[in-house]
């Protein structure tokens, strides 16, 4: 078990997501940066769909109640084990009683903590990903205890590490044309691809972009949306929907991010800029 000594800013359990329930309005959820989460699992020899911790901007402090192996990927939260600095992107052995500290993130927004065998938290509708109204918790709080599998196999080779792995920090975001893209006038299209958009308020549901464009498209009949759908709101501001987004919406869907751009976007925070590029 892990005991949460400090919860951090927004720490959740995530996996690859919840599938098959969009028809009744249940979002897909799952890790925002799927590549980093997958890497955390691969380093430990886990199935890539195993549950990990997603830690946002300020990481938690965690006490281990059993021996196990862990891995930390994604943004750099300056991790230390019993006040000793430890490396990311590498399997680490932890002893019962060890305390892991994660602080403010640099070079990214979200870190992932993988654990040998994955976390054994409650599974709802096929996934352990936290979501309000589906799982009991929407985020971890102090004194929560999270179960994980007992390490029974012999210790793994500890030389497995990916030191040169870096999360994608480029500001280029690849997009496809969305279903309502062609309703935009040519001026708006120009602006979309020639503006450095500043990231505004954001969370797991969506990223608001600050710079408005002229909106000449009216609302559409409520239609399916996906993580990565870029909606144009009546005020002319763009919203990029993320993993916890609703399953349908009535704003025009002007663009759609590709999957790897979703991973890079989820490492960006308020005030950073992005440039949209048609692929």
């Amino acid at each position, binding site marked *: 078990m892990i005991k949460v000594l400090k919860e951090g800013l927004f720490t959740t359990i995530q996996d690859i997501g919840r*599938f*098959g*329930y*969009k*028809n*009744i*309005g*249940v*979002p897909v959820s799952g890790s925002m940066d799927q590549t980093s989460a997958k890497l955390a699992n691969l380093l430990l020899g886990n199935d890539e769909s195993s549950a990990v911790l997603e830690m946002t901007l300020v990481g938690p402090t965690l006490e281990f109640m059993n021996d196990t192996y862990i891995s930390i990927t994604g943004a750099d939260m300056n991790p230390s084990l019993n006040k000793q600095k430890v490396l990311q992107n590498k399997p680490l052995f932890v002893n019962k009683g060890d305390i892991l500290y994660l602080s403010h993130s640099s070079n990214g927004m979200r870190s992932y903590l993988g654990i040998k065998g994955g976390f054994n938290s409650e599974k*709802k*509708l096929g996934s352990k990903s936290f979501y*309000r*109204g*589906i799982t009991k918790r929407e985020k971890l709080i102090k004194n929560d205890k999270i179960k994980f599998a007992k390490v029974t196999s012999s210790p793994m080779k500890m030389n497995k590490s990916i030191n040169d792995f870096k999360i994608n920090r480029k500001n280029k975001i690849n997009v*496809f044309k969305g*279903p309502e893209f062609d309703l935009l006038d040519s001026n708006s299209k120009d602006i979309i691809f020639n503006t450095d958009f500043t990231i505004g308020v954001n969370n797991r549901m969506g990223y608001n972009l600050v710079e408005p464009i002229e909106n000449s498209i009216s609302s559409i*009949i*409520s*239609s*399916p949306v*996906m993580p*990565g759908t870029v909606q144009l709101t009546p005020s002319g501001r763009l919203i990029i929907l993320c993993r916890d987004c*609703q*399953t*349908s*919406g009535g704003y025009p869907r002007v663009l*759609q*991010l*590709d*999957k790897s751009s979703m991973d890079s976007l989820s490492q960006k925070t308020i005030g950073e800029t992005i440039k949209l590029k048609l692929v």
Partner: protein
Amino acid sequence: MKKNNIFFKVFNEESILIQWNDKVSIKLIDSIISYKNLIEKELKETLIECVQSINSMMVIYNPNKINSKDLINILKKLSTSAFIVTKKKKKIWSIPVCYDISFGIDLKDLSTLNNISIDEIISLHSSTTYNVLSMGFLPGFLYLGMNHKKLYCERKDKPELNIKSGSIGIARDQSGIYPQDSPGGWRIIGRSPISFFNVDDKSPCFAEPGDKIKFQSISLSDFNKIEKNRSSYDIKYKLL
């Protein structure tokens, strides 16, 4: 389905959007449901899920098993093949609603706005048989059509921050049920005491698109009685 009214579009690396240019109707929704059932049967191996909406459907697939071009070809074939709209008996669910002013926080405004008495709003709303058009927005949120034209209204300019679970709202020509506490912009005319989404049930939501719903006006004291035992309340339905 008429061939020239249906469009297929690659949405991203793992989904195809199918869109109908027909007028929104119950007939269209029923044929989208039949088409969805056919896709789910024929493409079991490659499909992740189909998300149906009022005049469109998202087909999410495993790109390791099929490419978008081949999938679109199969989807096109399935759409033109003469499938029969399943003549399944439809359920009409009876949903108890208390239209008391304390729950229907927008009844007064709507009455002024549409120049209609509160009694008439209640009587029009509870005498209409609604169709479940789709679900979305929140887990178990039901989009229901269509409101009597005297009830037509736009969403509120400023959404409420906390609409209570069970609230019944109207916006444009649709009604909706809030299955959990949530912000929202629909005009709230009443509240149901029952639970609309139970994550531990085999089917977390009682209804599905294509079903029908009729609201039954109940008193405040009935509301309280039902709410006390809401976990054991069985939502009643008739077969049409």
